[in-house]
């Protein structure tokens, strides 16, 4: 892909780029549709309910119907809102969430941009979504939306720090920021994957990852009981759908990133199982992490804002820093 960018721009190349983009978008839309269905079903079972079961066989068309409802809904913009920013905010939130997926290696040679700084690219661009959320909250001209936006920004900035620092251990062990090479450096057996030597980093990464996704137990930006719905309270119809879409695309992205960084990407858990295609292993690990997100959402209560900040700065950050020191000492001794 990247070598095509350097070549003269012809119509064929433009079409190839566009086709890749549309294909990836369709895959992600399919994922989001059924991730929402799966989430509702899983939480339903865990809470002794059925979950959606009316629309289509087993309720499989429930999300399709929901999205259709959002599309044909009236698109309201508050009169006192800052109109251009109100329209722009969902776009600014969604675009980075989709763009970060470009660098994730699903298998050894499935479509992705083989960037030298893949991990940095992910972290850098995912930070821009926060701007969209704050702007959405600010442009709504609503105190609950503004509070939600501010909380969202405070939370995402606080948790981005431990998230980034927790993966430095992985970068030190593999010596590269290239996601493809990070997967290659992990072996064909599960005890060679990064999550065992980097167990502290892995735990910090998972907690910070859930917080970055604004999911329960860290869903303070949209705490229904205190803020109505957070930064997107004034949004309806398609614009609201874009905020939700961005959230679920980040679920996709963080689950893929965890698989790549800590769970060996497309590698099989045992070397003798390597005959099964890598994409199957990737999808399996990916699904387990997505399930984990739904699982804790169904079982954990929401924490308070001061507990959230305390956890981020006083527990996760020192742990992540300690992880770097231990990794460095270990590497210094063995090298």
């Amino acid at each position, binding site marked *: 892909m990247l070598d095509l960018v*350097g070549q003269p721009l012809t119509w064929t190349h433009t079409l190839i780029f566009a086709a890749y983009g549309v294909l990836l978008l369709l895959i992600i839309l399919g994922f989001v549709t059924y991730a929402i269905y799966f989430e509702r079903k899983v939480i339903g079972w865990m809470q002794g309910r059925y979950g959606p079961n009316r629309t289509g066989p087993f309720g499989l068309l429930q999300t399709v119907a929901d999205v259709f409802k959002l599309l044909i809904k009236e698109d309201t913009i508050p009169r006192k809102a800052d109109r251009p920013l109100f329209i722009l905010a969902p776009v600014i939130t969604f675009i980075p969430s989709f763009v970060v997926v470009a660098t994730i290696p699903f298998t050894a040679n499935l479509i992705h941009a083989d960037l030298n700084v893949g991990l940095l690219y992910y972290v850098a661009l995912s930070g821009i979504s926060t701007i969209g959320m704050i702007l959405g909250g600010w442009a709504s001209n609503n105190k609950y939306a503004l509070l939600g936006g501010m909380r969202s920004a405070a939370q995402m900035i606080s948790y981005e720090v431990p998230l980034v620092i927790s993966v430095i251990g992985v970068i030190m062990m593999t010596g590269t920021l290239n996601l493809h090479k990070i997967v290659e450096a992990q072996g064909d057996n599960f005890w060679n994957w990064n999550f065992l030597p980097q167990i502290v980093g892995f735990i910090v990464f998972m907690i910070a990852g859930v917080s970055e996704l604004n999911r329960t137990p860290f869903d303070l930006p949209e705490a229904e009981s205190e803020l109505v719905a957070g930064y997107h309270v004034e949004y309806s119809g398609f614009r609201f759908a874009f905020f939700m879409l961005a959230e679920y695309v980040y679920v996709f992205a963080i689950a893929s990133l965890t698989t790549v960084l800590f769970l060996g990407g497309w590698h099989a858990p045992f070397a003798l199982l390597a005959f099964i295609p890598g994409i199957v292993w990737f999808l399996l690990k990916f699904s387990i992490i997505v399930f984990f997100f739904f699982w804790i959402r169904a079982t954990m209560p929401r924490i308070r804002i001061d507990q959230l900040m305390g956890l981020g700065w006083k527990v996760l950050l020192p742990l992540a820093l300690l992880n770097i020191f231990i990794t460095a000492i270990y590497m210094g001794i063995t090298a």
Partner: protein
Amino acid sequence: MFSGLGGFLSDGHNWWFLLFAIGAIGGAIYMINFTKVVHMVLSVAFTFISLAGLYVLLEAEFVGFVQILIYAGAISILMIFGIMMTNHRGEEASKKRPVYHVLLTIGSLGLFFILFYAIQNTSFPPGTFEAGEDNTLEIGKLLYSQHVIAFEIMSVLLTVAFIGAIVIAKREED
């Protein structure tokens, strides 16, 4: 002056360059022209992202994405926070005298011609640029060999600033 234009436009890199350059300049112009402060921050963020695009075109991916992470992400959000904590209304631009506009035009034209003259008279050394295979690695090596003193001084400076921030926050708490 415009002889190489056909070749210039057939290269994909140059289209990206035009896009990012226009983005960077456009963002800066809008930043000055907007009256609401939040709009200004957004235009500045746009400029930062366009500059990052230019760095990537120059094969400096590391600098480019750090630019997005620090400037477009962190600094823009910091500014938005600062703006929201303080009170701002869309302020009316005060009337400027005609002399002001004349001086402004002369000044900007003068600056343009100085820059134009300097760029026209610069001779760029021929030859191709060899970017490192992994420029993050190369930057790391340079930081710990040639520039290690500057790097250490920077880290001490950042620690001092960090402690200073804690001290100020503590004082306000009491």
